[in-house]
């Protein structure tokens, strides 16, 4: 077992443990923090997979953005100190079972699929190549999605503003 393997298992365990905590903690703020750690763990996994760019994107967007936003919305809508109600057994049990069976099923599929790993070619996702392909107008270029993303973001932004400002107006009237 070399260092890299140990590292992988550590990261995996870390992701899973924090993930489980994130969905089971009853304090909502803590839940957000656990989610955050889980997401950082995933970023670490990307580092481990030699995808630093994706890892950084993960951290920038998730940690710097989404989690902060989630925390803000927790403050806006919750009493953050309260414990959330304990989910009733009639609810946890079926969900746990469903998740478990889904898990077993999928694992089964993965186990039996037998992926052929392509080990010959060096995987080299430098930012440079990503950028080149991003701006490429030709075959396999992502210039169109790139521009479409801006439309998407525009739409999201306008949507947010419209939704978030709506009630505000009504309140003031």
């Amino acid at each position, binding site marked *: 077992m070399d260092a890299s393997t140990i590292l992988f298992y550590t990261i995996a365990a870390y992701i899973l443990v924090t993930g489980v905590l994130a969905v089971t903690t009853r304090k909502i703020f803590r839940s957000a923090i656990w989610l955050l750690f889980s997401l950082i763990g995933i970023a670490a996994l990307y580092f481990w997979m030699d995808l630093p760019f994706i890892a950084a994107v993960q951290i920038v967007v998730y940690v710097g953005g989404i989690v902060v936003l989630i925390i803000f919305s927790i403050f*806006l809508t919750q009493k953050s100190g309260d414990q959330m109600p304990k989910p009733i057994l009639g609810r946890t049990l079926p969900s746990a079972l469903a998740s478990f069976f889904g898990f077993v099923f999928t694992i089964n599929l993965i186990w039996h699929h037998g992926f052929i790993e392509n080990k010959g070619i060096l995987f080299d996702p430098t930012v*440079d190549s990503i950028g080149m392909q991003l701006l490429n107008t030709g075959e396999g270029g992502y210039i169109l999605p790139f521009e479409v993303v801006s439309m998407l*973001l525009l739409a999201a*932004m306008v949507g947010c*503003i419209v939704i*978030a400002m709506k009630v505000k107006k009504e309140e003031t009237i």
Partner: protein
Amino acid sequence: MGSGSLITLMLAAIAFSAGGIAVAKFLTKGSTNPQKGQAYECGIPSEGTPWKQFHVGYYLFALIFLIFDVELVFMYPWAVVAKKVGMMALFEIIVFIFILFMGFLYAHKKGALKWM
């Protein structure tokens, strides 16, 4: 040294902080009194807890920030190759930014960037 260095630094930070706190724990003895553990609020007993619902006047900024943050993410790969690609890159980014800037202007107009 790659990711090893990250682990090293992380461990170093933990060792440093934990070490300091441990030293503090072993070398000092504190006194206890009933008021010590209470929240500090200018010397007056605190009323209620802050852990309640709280109006964050600036959450809209955070919403808009998130959008721009994603935009920024896309601009890193662009920036790296912009010089190589040449004018084309400039046009593409102008389109990209322009579209987003519309949203920005919209936000301004709607007063979303004012304090709520």
